[in-house]
Structures are given as C-alpha cells and as structure tokens.
C-alpha cells in the first residue's frame, strides 16, 4: 500500500534511513521507488551525477537532446521510474544522492554505516547510516586480452555505448565490434544508428547455445523481439555478423588502424589460415559482463558461479544475501539484463518492507533468471582463447605485465593461483585492481574456478578521507 503523499516522512540529516540503495541503475531505481511506495525512508546513492546507471545512461541536460529514446531500448520504462523517483523526492520519502561513490559497507549495532566519497578533498567523505542496504551496483565488462588491445581506439563495447549515450561521441568512423555476448549486438546497433560504419560484428560463439533450450527462450518473447530488433538494424546497415570468430590482433602504432579476425574452433582456439584483415579506426570489444560485488564480498557474503564463470552473489527467493540486512538485486546476482534487474529491485523492496509481492512478479523473475543462465551458458568463454596471445601481449594494462612474465610465474616459479601471480608479477595490482585483467590472469594461472574478487576499498579513496574518520551525511 503506497504511503499517502500527504504524509511526508521527515528525514533529518543525521537520521538513520530504513534503506540505503547503492546504485541508481534499473535495479536500484526500481527498488528505491518501490520501497518508498511501501513506506520505507530511503536514500539512493550513485557515483554518477544522474540516475540511470550504465543501461539508461543519457545525455546531460546541457546537450539538449530532444530524443534520448533513440539511443535506448525501453526508454519509457526509465522515464516512468525517474518520474516516480522525482515525486518521492518532492515528498521527502527518498533522497537521491548523485556523485556519491560508496567505497565500503560496515556493519554496525543497528544496521550499516555506508562509507561514501564525493570527491578528492578530505571533507568529501560522508557516512550514511541505514538499517538495511540493497546492493544494486550492476556489472562491468569482462575483457580477454589480445595483441594490440592497449592501442588507443580499442575501447570496451560498453564504453563505446557509454560515451555515445552520455557524450554523443564516437571513438572513430569505422568501428569493428568484437567479443561475445548480447551487448555486442546492442552496441553495434547503437553505433550504426548514430552514424558509425561497422564493418563487422565478430562474435566468438555460434549462437547455437540459445537453441539448446527452446522452452526458456519461448518464455521470454520480449528478449526475442529485442534481439530481432538489433538484428534488423544491423541488416539494414549492411553490417556483417561473423560468428565463431575473434579479433586476434589490433594493428597500429599510435592508434588502431586495422584488426586481424580469425575463425575459432569450438574451444575458441584460432584456426590457422583463416585470418583476414579488416581496416578500421576503432574497435569496441567485450566478453560479457561481470557482477560488481566487492562491497558485499568484503562483508563475507556468499557467492555463486554462473555458467559463464562469472561470480555473483548468492541470494534467496527474497533477494537476501547471506549477510543479515543486506539485499541484492539485478546484475549483482548474475548478469541478466535490465528487465530482470527491475523485477528484482521491486521484489527486494517488498522483502525489505516485509510485504508479500504479487506472484506474477516472482514468476517473471524465474523466467528471466532462466534466460540469464541460458545466455551465460551460450557465451561462456572457451579455454582456447589464450591461443591468440603472444608473449609480449600486455595482460595487466595498469602495470604493463605481459603474457611472458605471467607464464614465467606459473611455469618456472610455481604460482598456481591469481593471487600468487599478482604477488610475483604485479598483474592486478594497479589502478583498476584487477577489474580488467582478472579473468585473463585467472585463466593463465591454471585450472579451477576463480573465487570472488576481494577489494577492501571498492574505489580509490584519498588518504586524507580515510584519516578524517566517519562524518555525517552532507
């Protein structure tokens, strides 16, 4: 039952919130407005200036975009959520705090202290007290290195999307889209619609993985329509889809000027003799998404591994993690897309408010989760991808650690896991804390499923802020 707008909940600066939602993408937005509907006093925190997250990233108001919907699938869903949020903000039931990057969650006697950084100065530290926390921090892209992937002009598929959606810019005029996963089709579709030429979409799988579970597909017709929509755009623009292939090298000195594409066998091993060169001035690459869960794993939350090897949080049917008072919705529970994230955000809000959700919502989650598992299985990286590496290919972009040094650590120094490789080579020790090279280092370190990443600080925090100690919400 929604709280009446005539009963605004007072939220003095120092008051503890019923719920802090971390991340204002599809899951976090849906959770915050639903929780407010149900009478909870919420704060919605995001590192970005505006709501929407990566999926609904959109031009800043100053760019005067009359039709932002043309860069989005389901834009009206976002505007609906944003309108509901604005109404709740006016009634002081929800506070949205943009530019608030959460770097740690700390358990307290009566809930959580949510530690936030807002900028580079000592005074930019804030601590938000909340009875419970809902993690909706989404995902980032999985990268598999290849020779030349550090050249300017080689960007992530999601990055190309983000720069386009927010800044209305392209990295080049002729962009090869490569890697694996449904994001590639969406990215290619946006890029050609925005005026880029896409000479090829290079996908490592053959898409046959989807056909193995026709029942799961049939249960989510909207996903088929979305996929067909992207396919239609690509067809109209004459974009060539190259399945079971990969970009095995990017060429250039100061920036990328061409790529070599090769066919892959079923294990993702490049097939010799199948190489072909494609001229381009940019590459957008990604191999699926990885849940961003450091804030929860630092509290000891249990995880599960999806069929594509990505580690997400283990939640129950009410979206509770194994940490009391900590909920999780959307990609953090295993990558499944915006529709699933919204459903999980609504479900989690009901659970936090101790209300029973509509059974249809639970059924929708089950259908979309099954599709997410199918999608993960279809795009699981094959072990043969390391066949396109060369000894001098940088694996860790931050610390510039090449394949040869990692192989030396494993073969000659006996490192058998990513942590030992890191200690011996510095791979994963740089600015990004292994977010870019982590999956590759794990593969090169040997067999075995990688565990969850551990990062005591989820983002860089100036020492002056750590030294300053906790302070109230500003």
């Amino acid at each position, binding site marked *: 039952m929604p709280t009446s707008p005539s009963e605004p909940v007072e939220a003095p600066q120092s008051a503890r919130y019923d719920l802090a939602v971390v991340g204002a993408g599809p899951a976090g937005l849906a959770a915050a407005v639903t929780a407010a509907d149900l009478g909870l006093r919420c704060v919605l925190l995001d590192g970005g200036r505006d709501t929407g997250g990566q999926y609904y990233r959109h031009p800043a108001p100053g760019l005067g975009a009359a039709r932002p919907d043309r860069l989005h699938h389901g834009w009206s869903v976002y505007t609906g959520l944003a309108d509901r949020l604005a109404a709740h903000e006016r009634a002081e039931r929800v506070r949205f705090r943009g530019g608030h990057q959460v770097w740690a969650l700390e358990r307290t006697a009566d809930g959580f202290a949510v530690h936030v950084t807002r900028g580079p100065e000592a005074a930019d530290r804030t601590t938000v007290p909340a009875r419970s926390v809902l993690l909706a921090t989404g995902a980032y*892209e999985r990268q598999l290195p290849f020779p030349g992937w*550090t050249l300017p002009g080689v*960007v992530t598929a999601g990055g190309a999307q983000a*720069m386009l959606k927010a*800044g209305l*810019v*392209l990295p080049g005029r002729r962009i090869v889209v490569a890697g694996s996963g449904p994001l590639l089709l969406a990215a290619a579709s946006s890029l050609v619609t925005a005026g880029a030429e896409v000479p090829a979409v290079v996908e490592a799988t053959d898409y046959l993985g989807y056909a193995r579970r026709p029942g799961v597909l049939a249960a989510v017709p909207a996903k088929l329509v979305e996929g067909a929509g992207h396919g239609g755009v690509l067809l109209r623009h004459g974009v060539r889809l190259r399945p079971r292939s990969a970009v095995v090298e990017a060429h250039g000195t100061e920036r990328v000027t061409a790529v070599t594409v090769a066919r892959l066998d079923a294990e993702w091993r490049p097939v010799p003799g199948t190489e072909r060169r494609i001229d381009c001035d940019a590459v957008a690459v990604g191999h699926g998404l990885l849940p961003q869960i450091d804030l929860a794993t630092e509290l000891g939350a249990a995880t599960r591994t999806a069929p594509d090897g990505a580690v997400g949080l283990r939640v129950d049917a009410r979206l509770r993690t194994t940490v009391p008072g900590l909920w999780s919705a959307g990609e953090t529970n295993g990558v499944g897309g915006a529709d699933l994230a919204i459903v999980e955000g609504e479900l989690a809000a009901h659970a936090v408010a101790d209300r029973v959700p509509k059974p249809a919502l639970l059924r929708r989650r089950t259908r979309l989760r099954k599709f997410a598992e199918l999608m993960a299985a279809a795009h699981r990286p094959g072990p043969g991808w390391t066949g396109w590496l060369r000894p001098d290919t940088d694996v860790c972009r*931050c610390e*510039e650690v090449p394949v040869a040094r990692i192989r030396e650590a494993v073969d000659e120094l006996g490192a058998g896991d990513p942590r030992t490789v890191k200690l011996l080579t510095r791979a994963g020790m740089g600015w*990004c804390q292994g977010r870019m090279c982590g999956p590759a280092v794990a593969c090169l370190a040997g067999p075995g499923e990688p565990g969850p990443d551990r990062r005591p600080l989820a983002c860089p925090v100036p020492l002056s802020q750590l030294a300053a100690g906790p302070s109230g919400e500003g």
Partner: protein
Amino acid sequence: MRRTPAELVGAEPGPAHHIEFDGRPVPALPGQSIAAALWADGVLAWRTTRVGGRPRGVFCGIGACFDCLATVDGRPNQRTCLLPAEPGTTVTTQEGNGRADLAV
C-alpha cells in the same frame, strides 16, 4: 549521408565553450565529459604509460579501468571519462604517474 549522434537524438546543445588541452583550445559542449570533448576533437590518447611510455586514452568509459587518466587543472591521475569539461578546464597529457615533481 551518415548522420551524427547529435542529429540522431535531436540535440540542441547550449553554446559551446573551450577547454585547454596541452596548451591549445578544444571545443566542448555543456554536459560533456573531458574525454567526450577530446573524442569529438579526434583525440584518442592523453596519457603515456609508466613502463613503456605507450599512449592511452579511454578504454572502459565508465570509471572502472583508469586508462583515461590525465592531469586536470594541475591534479594528476584524474579519470577524464567521469569529469565534466567545464569552461577553462586545463588538461595536460600525463606522463607516467604524473608526479615528475616528486622524482628523486
């Protein structure tokens, strides 16, 4: 005739201003990040790496990879994909860790 992203979304931006990149003016539209303004000007790299001295620019575009670091208004190691291009912002190509002043 291919269109531009701005045409696609029917953008009517506010008046352009300028940031300074390595001593020269680069136009920026209100609301664009520093990285977006540089891309729009055809610039893809604004950092050289610590070990190999190789050029780098945007990779992830969402603040996760730290490849797009530059020295902004004198402060090194700033993620240009997150920082807005404000009128008069000064961006300098960052060499290595951007702390040459601390070298011994």
